[in-house]
């Protein structure tokens, strides 16, 4: 009887602890970025992946500084011409994740490279406005961006066929006609 009760106690404790672990706000997890700037840091964060990726690729937080992400997340009601508003709790959760992994967080090689070319006070709203992005794409003619198969420079996956996996190296690029 005693053992049975003790067993139930142990099970209840383990159950409560695991419930607690799953209900804690997800902080995101950096697991290294492969060392180059063709591979985005591998990150997981439920709200970032669910919310940001419902309309576009979940752009890596490492591509803009914290000050940019604050501007982006502070203006979701007019997000590049569309209403992308969120409830305050989800918005705050995503911003925390973006700040923790931003270009100037020192947590990724790619972020360091983005910052090397950034003015210290700059807080661009678009990744495509960063000098790092412009330099990386300087061989792509303007007409290519305008193709209907590409749509816009926001559509990474049009050419970077493995963008969803965070892979951006040149071998995986196929520019559509």
């Amino acid at each position, binding site marked *: 009887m005693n053992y049975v009760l003790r067993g*139930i106690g142990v099970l*209840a404790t383990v*159950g409560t602890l695991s419930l607690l672990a799953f209900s804690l706000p997800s902080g995101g997890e950096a697991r290294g970025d492969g060392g180059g700037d063709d591979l985005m840091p591998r990150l997981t964060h439920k709200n970032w992946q669910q919310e940001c*990726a*419902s*309309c*576009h*690729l979940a752009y890596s937080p490492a591509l803009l500084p914290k000050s940019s992400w604050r501007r982006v997340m502070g203006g979701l*009601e007019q997000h590049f*011409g*569309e*209403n*992308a*508003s*969120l*409830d305050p709790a989800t918005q705050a959760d995503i911003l925390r994740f973006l700040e923790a992994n931003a270009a100037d967080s020192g947590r990724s090689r790619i972020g360091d490279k983005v910052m090397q070319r950034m003015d210290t006070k700059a807080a661009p709203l678009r990744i495509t406005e960063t000098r790092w992005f412009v330099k990386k794409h300087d061989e792509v003619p303007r007409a290519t961006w305008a193709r209907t198969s590409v*749509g*816009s420079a*926001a*559509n990474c*996956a*049009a050419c970077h066929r493995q963008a969803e996996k965070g892979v951006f190296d040149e071998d995986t690029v196929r520019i559509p006609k």
Partner: protein
Amino acid sequence: MIKRIAGAGLMLLSAHALADSPANFMARYAQAAGVAVTALSPARGEALYRGEHPGKNGAKQSCASCHTASPKQAGQTRVGKRIEPLAPAANPQRFTDAAKVEKWFRRNCTDVLARECSAQEKGDFIAWLNQLK
């Protein structure tokens, strides 16, 4: 103590089992609009879906601009990402999550109509989508 733990477990399970459905949303929106469910109009819902409004750069826009002329087909966001079909017949995940439904009505009514949609309009809209076979 044990009973209380078992009770909490049951409550968690039943919360999961009670997923929302298009019919639940129709009932809820009808109630909020102060009308009977039978007073919801699929025809008005379709008119809302196809209605054109002034958009960016002088172009006209409607729900169909992104969701295509047929809500049973997949659409595309402005930056080329796939939008799963809106009609429950083609996508059983639709209208099963209250937070999601309210979020997208809020965003998309503001974008397309430049105002929020009324409870009556939301009810009509789902009534139309839900009877598509």
